[in-house]
């Protein structure tokens, strides 16, 4: 597995950890252009009471609002930009990324419920679009870490409870089943 990709994915994972600390579903991402990170973001759906504020859309807004990163109006502002995200982009984000002309996507674990890069729907390339070019999406980068941080979110103690109780019946599972196919899932 390419060490450069892993290096960027570690940065995305740090954002997922930040989301966890903020009591958000822990998904994080970084956008990379010309060998450097131009935006990093994480889920903010709870804070903003908006179920569409996923990490990817947060970062895209940041990039478009920055005149240094988006100096001129173009049809595809992310044409030279690669996304690293801890979880496979959902159908909404996969479509958003295609509309923005993203170059390529690398992700950690698959998203069986909402995945838009092949798990539920192949919005990145399988789905035909009259204008927007398809993009390649490859999973399996720090997949176990991505799954574990999600699991940690779902068993978090509630510090706000009046009488915090020990979670006797909720144990953090550490066993991770492999994907049905071996190696990184290529979702193009």
């Amino acid at each position, binding site marked *: 597995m390419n060490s450069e990709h892993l290096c960027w994915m570690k940065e995305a994972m740090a954002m997922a950890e930040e989301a966890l600390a903020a009591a958000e579903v822990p998904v994080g991402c970084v956008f990379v252009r010309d060998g450097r990170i131009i935006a990093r973001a994480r889920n903010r759906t709870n804070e*903003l009471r908006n179920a569409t504020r996923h990490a990817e859309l947060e970062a895209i807004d940041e990039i*478009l609002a920055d005149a240094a990163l988006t100096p001129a109006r173009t049809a595809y502002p992310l044409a030279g930009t690669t996304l690293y995200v801890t979880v496979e982009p959902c159908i909404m984000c996969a479509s958003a990324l295609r*509309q923005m002309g993203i170059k390529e996507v690398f992700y950690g674990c698959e998203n069986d419920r909402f995945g838009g890069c092949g798990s539920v729907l192949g919005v990145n390339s399988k789905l*035909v679009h*009259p204008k927007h070019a398809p993009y390649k999406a490859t999973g399996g980068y720090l997949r176990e870490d991505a799954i574990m941080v999600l699991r940690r979110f779902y068993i978090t103690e509630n510090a706000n409870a009046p009488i915090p*109780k020990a*979670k006797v019946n909720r144990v953090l599972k550490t066993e991770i089943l492999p994907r049905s196919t071996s190696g990184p899932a290529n979702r193009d």
Partner: protein
Amino acid sequence: DKLSVLDTQIRKYADGNPQEVPSEEDLPFTRIKLYRDDEEDELSSVRTQAAWVVDLPDARHTATMLQWLKKSGLETPTMSHLKRIRKQEARLTVLLALTAECPQVPTLPNVPALSEPYVIEVPSSAALTQISLKHKNTFWPTVYAPRKKGELEGWTRGRALWACEAMRRTVEEARAAAERDELPIAAHVPVPYETEDREATQMSTSFLGHDTRTSTGHPLRHAALNLIRSIADFRASSSRSAAPSPSPSSVDSPTSFPLPPIAGEAPAPRNGAHYLLTSLTLFTTHEPCIMCSMALLHSRVKEVFYLVPLAKTGGCGSVACLPALKGVNHKYNIGKWRDCESVPGWAEEEGIRINDDVDA
């Protein structure tokens, strides 16, 4: 000025008894079927979602627990297909909330011997057949609600009139956007027709949004996404403080979102009952793109009505039908306006024609 198709429809439903139930063919829209009822008969087809539950070892506290639950604000309309209590031999378990609506561990009442809340998978919808009921009950006791033949799920003449008027307002908003050199695409969430939905959703004012990708230079500023953001910002600000907070950034917001209600007028927010777009109906001039169709699913909208289908880009029945996908944890109903396709040049005449390769 000759009467537009929508005006003609409005005249039609304005006459007569608003309680009367029109025939399916008489409604201004056709409904897109999301799934066949007997598709539910396979155990593997049961769609589930995560929910918080708690074990109640002492059955004598059942009434106390249920009373608390009623007042807790955890119950939402999206849980109405689930029974509150599961009994497995001597073991009682109480359903607290859907994790999607209550991501934090719910705070429990002071009832002795309660377990810690934990998460299990529960069915996402009521059982339509006896076989599916059996399957769904293996996850959690579920309500049996078979569809009656020809049942129109509460579509009366009054409600059809409400829908036509809401759609006309949506078209006006799209035309106003076009006058400002935006794409003529608009979305609209009106105040719900039913009193109980109005109260549960705390929607005392309607919300409008339109496409702003041209003025903002942002390819994702679509009407539906803009509207979802306006409603979220409004709800976040009205629950943060009693005083209306400043409106969100002018760049990101459609120009015509309503002002927050006067302080003290809104009732105390009930957890979950006014969650996102739960129990709300969205009207839009054009079939939403894949991104917006999924954004509406994430936002738990109840139903979506559109005028112009977009065969090459639409996510509500054309390229894909997102709420019909297996695995997704929410469904919304889709209605496609009838006369839009049958009357040639209709979109053109209304001033809302767009190219067929656009994502609305």
